[in-house]
Every structure is written in structure tokens, then in C-alpha cells.
């Protein structure tokens, strides 16, 4: 039986700005089991990065505010942590790598000193031992030259920097690694290397990975389960094969259709019409309704809950998969209805 490592329940992170409240994350449920690789997919601005930053406690508050819900990591509610307790979690239990390797390392300190800092933050070891461990961690990610410890970030390429970021994230052996678009800024060949590396670390060390991306190719390659987000909500969740073969939510289906395919010739690549809704003025009813080709009258009035699709743990937030009547006897705690 696999144990749940990360469980986000009914989580809402809103931003209070001068121009109104931005509901960046508006009631999402998400779980990651130990050793699992979960993909979190969605367009820019759908709240996936805010979700990941919330798990790290890196959303600046204010303007951000946790409105409701909880984030449980190995049974502990992270939303209630104090500043000091957060520092025990970050880098130690959960680590994160970011989209921009070029700017994610401090330019004025050597790679070694930045890694040693990460180690000594959480482990009671001397400088020499920390340096040794830093070298080990860098060898793990495929950088075997010792001189790297004394090099500065600007002397490294983007791919090398992302390796350093991964080594730095893994150095305290966290249970969960959050990867926020780790390959977006890299060349395609380097992307494959970085993904290989992450998969290897997942298999060898059993580190669970929450892979945040808008690249469905990355998802197909890496993840066992996928959560699709749209406008601050989870709209569909399924294991990776089901999602690709049988997407239920029109948004997911649209995303999959917009991937170019070599075997099918078409004059124009499909794109989902319209734009992401303004987060200050979410549509009433289904948030995807204004862009949806299957839109019905109910979609504009009532917000759909997450419906269970018959096969396994496949859920979809769309009225196509259930009716209002079923909504009445829904499982109130998880906002999920069996159909």
C-alpha cells in the first residue's frame, strides 16, 4: 500500500491587490504518494506555480493569503507552520527547482558555497564534510569534475546550472521534489538529459516528484498520474495513460488536440479559442464555459463539481459527466460525485 506524502485539500490561495482579489488557487485537491511522479498541467496563469510555491511556503503574504484548506506533508499541516518551522521543511523535506536555471543561482557565490550552505542549513556537518557531500551530489547529477565547486554560475551553461540546481535540491534527500517547468528554458537535447536525470533520481532514491509543466510531452515521459488545472481549479485528474487515451474534460481534450502530430497532416494546428478568464472576474458557472465547444445552459449557471468517471480514479469537472441531481448527493468533503 502506497502512502500519501503530500495531500492538498480544498486549498485556496487568494491575492489581495488594490484592484481586487485574485483567486489564483481556488479550492484544489491534489495528492502525491511516496515515490510517485505526478504532473500538474495547465496554461500560464492557471495557478499551478502558485500551488507549488504554496507547498514551499514561498508565496509572499501579503498580498497572498491562504483562504481555506490545508496542505498536509506526511501528516503535518504546512499552512499552520511558523516561520522557523518552515525553514526546517524547505530544502529538507521538500525541495524545489525552478524554470530559469540561468537566474536561479546566486551570481556572486561559487557553486560549492551555495551547495554547502544548503547542506549545513539542515545537517550538522563540518565544512569539509559538507564540501565532500556537495561533490557527491554533483557527481550524482553527472558533473564529475571537482573544480565545479569553485566555479561561479556564470561560467556554466543552462543545462549545467539546472543540474547544479537539482543537485542542490537533492542534497538533503527530500521526500518530495517540486519541479516548476524544469526544462522549459533548456535546449531540447538538454531537456531530455534533465528529464532522464530526474527519472533516475526518482527510481534510485524514491523521491516523489511534483512536475509542474505546460508541456504534455514531458508529462507523457515522466508522470504516472496527471492533474490538469484551469483558472485556479483542478478540472481533470487521471493516470497518464487514461488521460492521453481518453480525456474527459473538454479543456484537456483541447490541450491534447493542440499538440502537433507528425503522422496527421493538417493545414492549421488546433488551438483552444478564447483566452484564460480574468482572475478578478471569474465567470459564474463553469470557468471554461466561455471557451468550450460543448457548452450547455447549465454550464453558464452552475459550477460543476469533480465527477468520478467510471474507470478508477479518473475525475473531471464537467457537466457532461453528471447531472445536477447527482450533485446533490455528492461527497461533500471532496467535492466529488460518482456517476
Amino acid at each position, binding site marked *: 500500500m502506497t502512502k500519501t506524502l503530500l495531500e492538498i485539500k480544498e486549498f485556496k490561495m487568494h491575492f489581495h491587490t488594490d484592484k481586487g482579489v485574485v483567486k489564483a488557487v481556488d479550492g484544489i485537491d491534489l495528492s502525491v504518494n511516496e515515490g510517485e511522479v505526478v504532473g500538474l498541467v495547465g496554461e500560464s496563469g492557471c495557478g499551478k506555480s502558485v500551488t507549488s510555491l504554496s507547498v514551499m511556503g*514561498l508565496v509572499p503574504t501579503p498580498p497572498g493569503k491562504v483562504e481555506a484548506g490545508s496542505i498536509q506533508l506526511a501528516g503535518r499541516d504546512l499552512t499552520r507552520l511558523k*516561520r522557523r518551522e518552515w*525553514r526546517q521543511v*524547505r530544502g*529538507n523535506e521538500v525541495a524545489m527547482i525552478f524554470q530559469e536555471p540561468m537566474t536561479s543561482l546566486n551570481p556572486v557565490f561559487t557553486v560549492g558555497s551555495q551547495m554547502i550552505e544548503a547542506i549545513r542549513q539542515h545537517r550538522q556537518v563540518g565544512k569539509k564534510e559538507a564540501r565532500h557531500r556537495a561533490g557527491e551530489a554533483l557527481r550524482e547529477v553527472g558533473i564529475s569534475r571537482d573544480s565545479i565547486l569553485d566555479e561561479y554560475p556564470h561560467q556554466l551553461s543552462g543545462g549545467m546550472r539546472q543540474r547544479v540546481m537539482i543537485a542542490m535540491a537533492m542534497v538533503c534527500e527530500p521526500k518530495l521534489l517540486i519541479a516548476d517547468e524544469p526544462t522549459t528554458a533548456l535546449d531540447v537535447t538538454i531537456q531530455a538529459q534533465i528529464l532522464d536525470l530526474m527519472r533516475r533520481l526518482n527510481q534510485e532514491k524514491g523521491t516523489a516528484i511534483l512536475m509542474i509543466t505546460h508541456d504534455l510531452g514531458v508529462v507523457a515521459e515522466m508522470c504516472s498520474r496527471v492533474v490538469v488545472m484551469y483558472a485556479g481549479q483542478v478540472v481533470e485528474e487521471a493516470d497518464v495513460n487514461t488521460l492521453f487515451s481518453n480525456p474527459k474534460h473538454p479543456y484537456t481534450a483541447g490541450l491534447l488536440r493542440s499538440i502537433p502530430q507528425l503522422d496527421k497532416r493538417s493545414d492549421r494546428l488546433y488551438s483552444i479559442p478564447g483566452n484564460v478568464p480574468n482572475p478578478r472576474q471569474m465567470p459564474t458557472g463553469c470557468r471554461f464555459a466561455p471557451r468550450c465547444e460543448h457548452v450547455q445552459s447549465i454550464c453558464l449557471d452552475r459550477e460543476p463539481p469533480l465527477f468520478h468517471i467510471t474507470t478508477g480514479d479518473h475525475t473531471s469537472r464537467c457537466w457532461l459527466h453528471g447531472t445536477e441531481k447527482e450533485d446533490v448527493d455528492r461527497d461533500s468533503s471532496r467535492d466529488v460525485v460518482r456517476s
Partner: protein
Amino acid sequence: MLIPVLIGMSIITFSIVHAIPGDPAKAILGEKATPEAVAQLKESMGLGKPLFIQYVDYVKGILSGDLGTSFITKTSVAEEIGPYLAATMELSFAAMVIAVFFGMNLGILAAWRHNTGVDYTAMVIAIIGVSVPVFWLGLMEQWVFAQDLSWLPSNGRIDARMGFEPITNFYFIDALIQGDFVAFGDAFRHIILPAVALGTIPMAYIARMTRSSMLEVMRSDYIRTVRAKGVSEFLIIYKHTLRNAFIPILTVFGLQMGLLLGGAILTETIFSWPGIGRYVYEAINNRDYPVIQSGILIIAFIFVMINLIVDLLYAWIDPRIQYGKE
């Protein structure tokens, strides 16, 4: 860079000094001197020669370490200027210590508590700091701390009754060399008020520059990375952010230090501080050409040197900056 700047400075100061209306010989001999006496004196001071020759003589002198002889005191400027220079450097340095300490911490505090009452208060203090006239601040300090409260002495570098014998003319260093801690304390008490008056404007500039520079760095990706490692807020601010934010701060520091050295005349006058500002100011009144020229040249030289050091520090702070390598 250094050489052309100094050559330029020497030409400019020489020209300006000679363009000042008024005749040094007349200034020395007084209104009622006969034209013959004036002409004779001018000849003996070397002022009868063409300007170009005078300039060549002046530069020759500088290159051999001779800064000329004061018309008034008849002593070598190079000898005479030492104590004044030391007094000004000591005061400027003290003012800069105050400016850097309070300015940077004020700026850091403002950036750390961005858009809160703390930030606004710090920035109001900084705006008052840049706008307050130095002479007014100096007089107020004297009035409150020297006269009303009698906490601190209002003028001079040290109590004359102590009979302190300077060696290097840097009183703090001298007091330490002699092991005279009473003198050290007294010199310290004397320097506080003028240093605060002189340091206020640079303090405010440094605070503003620190704040904006820190804010920019705090939003950067690598600070987020550091935070994601679980590093404490204190280290994030003082180690990671400050080091990256330091270059613009250092630039302001260099420029302000130069201004302090040359622009301390008001403070030196108010607090009877025997510094180079007052020395040159009196020389200007007396049309004492060699003193004016050499005084300004030395100030310019120090200014250039400080900024050279600042440039070198850039490379030390930021490994991406390298000089002389292509």
C-alpha cells in the same frame, strides 16, 4: 584614466585660479602699495612670466614633489598641507562610517518592510536627510548637544588643554600609538557632531540607493532559490541580497566620499575643524595661488583614487566583473 584626469584637473585649477579677479601682490601689500613695489613682488613670486611658462614650472614642481610655496606663510605647501589633509580625511572617514552604517541599515529595513509604515518612515527620514542644509544641522547640533545639554564639545579636534602632540596628524591613530586613551576618547567626543552633520546627506543617498537596489535583488529568482533552501531571513538579506545589491551602493559611496573630502568647508567652518576645506577657502581669500592649486589638485587626486578603489572593489564583489581580460 588616472593620469589624464589629473592633467586635466591641473590645467583647470591653474586656469581658474589665474582667472580669479584680484592680484595676489596687491592683496599682500595692501591698497596703498606703490606700483613699483607690487611689480617687484610679482616678479619675485614668479607671476611676471607668461602663463604658459608658469604652468610648466608648476607641473615640473609637482612632478618633483614640490607643491609650491605659500605666498602668505612663505612655507612649502607640501609641508603645510599635511595636518589639514589629515584632519579632513579623519572627519570624512568618520562621517562615511556613520553614513554607511545608518544609511545601509535604513535602506535594508525599508526594503525588507517594503510598502509598510517602516518603509515610509525610513524614506521620509532619507528625504529630510538630503534636504536639510548642513550649516543649519550643524548649528542645531551645537545648540542642542553642546550648549543646552553640554554632552559634547562644539568645536575643534581635541581639547587644547590636553597638550596632545600629534605624530601623523590622524588623532585617533596618534592617540593609539601613544596609548593615550583619554586623548582618544576626547578626539572621539569632538568628532561626533561634525561627523553627523557631514554624514547626513550621504547617509540619505546611501539609504535610498540601498533600498531600491535591495528591492530589485529581492525579487530575483536566486533569492527565491535561497529561500527554498530554508536559509534564514537574516542571511538572505545580509548575505545573499546585500552582496548583489552592493555595486550601486558602492558607486554612491565613492562619489559621496569625494564630495565629503572637498565639500566639508561648511562643516569645518561651523565646528572650527582645521581641515583642507578651510585651508583652501582662506587661500582663495588671500589669492594664495600655490595653495589653491595644490589643495584642489590633492582633493581631486584623492577623489580619483577612491573611485579607482571602488572600481577594483566591484570586481571583488561580483565575480562576473573582470578587468584587463578579454
